[in-house]
């Protein structure tokens, strides 16, 4: 089938920063993204798990964002401004999408 090149950006970020990140994305005209829940993880600040947690201080979410290649830099800059002082991981993968007109 006919596919089109695009970029898949995955931003793993603290749950408390989710709204700030998505606002920044929307502000940079990146209107398409999907937020996945995260169960737990490990990093330089240690191990954590959401099991039984009531507060939001220890959770992360994963924001997946598929964009046209020429929009990548705008996206990364918007994301970086939010992520910078915080913990979080930003990765970019090449991908192909169906229905390019949607992006």
């Amino acid at each position, binding site marked *: 089938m006919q596919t089109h090149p695009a970029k898949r950006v995955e931003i793993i970020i603290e749950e408390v*920063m989710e709204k700030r990140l998505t606002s920044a994305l929307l502000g940079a005209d990146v209107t398409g993204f999907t937020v996945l829940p995260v169960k737990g993880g490990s990093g330089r600040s240690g191990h954590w*798990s959401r099991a039984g947690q*009531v507060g939001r201080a220890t959770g992360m979410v994963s924001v997946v964002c598929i964009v046209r290649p020429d929009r990548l830099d705008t996206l990364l800059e918007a994301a970086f401004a939010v992520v910078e002082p915080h913990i979080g991981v930003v990765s970019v993968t090449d991908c192909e999408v169906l229905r390019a007109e949607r992006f």
Partner: protein
Amino acid sequence: MDLFALAVGNLTSPIILSFALGLFAALARSDLSIPEAVAKGMSIYLLFAIGFKGGVAVDEAGLSGTLLGALLGAVVLSFALPFAAYALLRVMTRLSALDAAAVAAHYGSISIVTFVAGTSVLESAGLSYDGWMVAVAAAMEAPAILSALWLVARSGGGRQMDGELMREILLNGSIVLLIGSFVIGWVTGSEGLARIESFIVSPFQGVLCLFLLDMGLVAGRGLRNARGVLRPGLLTFGVVMPLVGAASGAAAGLILGLGTGSTMLFMVLGASASYIAVPAAMRVALPEANPSVYLTLSLGVTFPFNLTLGLAIYLAVARFLTGG
């Protein structure tokens, strides 16, 4: 030996033992765990129930002039305690200014579960308290955060408080639910209570048990992951600071002329440390501060101390001071 008997009676209540069970299970690395959604559901239930009952009590007893004074005292206390905590931390531990300020914010704010456990102890002792103490509790949630941010700004670090963060703090879920259900209880009064009593009153203690089981599990997991963090100085702070907070609460209670029950609860509010609202605010405002320090201290040290020994001490002192 009244105090001793009380402590023992308290220690063998289903509530404390449930917490101990959770702590044990986590430290022994059992896979026992309560789903996040269930834990949140129970916390919503507890906030709704305690707020509602407080509102009904106000409807029944009427508002004495003390409420305004108590609210004012609460705000002052929440603003002031972080300074005491910060000073103690700088003297007793080697935390950086940033970490010390982040920890200090927790101790100016409050833990609503500790408050709820305090009301349980009062009920067992056959003592009553003013229904509006839940409003006092809500008033103490946020001001301490401002003090901490001010302490950080003064020492040249941190980020500025933006309007968005301010809104988040003041409208955080716990405050809105507590105040909201308080107002609902007040408006609907005992007639409203009668309709939902068998939901918010009868099963309350049982839900509290399961919730404390979960808190024990979370605290135990935190302690296991943060072994390196808890130096003796910090540990001592985690036990001394509640006593300082309780003393301030007692002073407030005496100045305002509150009864035994409300004075004891004021002490509990002063003594308890936040583990929901403040940590989340700190992640946003002071991302460089180490979360395992403040989470472990608040949930792993001060919370168990208050639950097991603190409540009994505060009740005894409140009785002594108010002659109750």
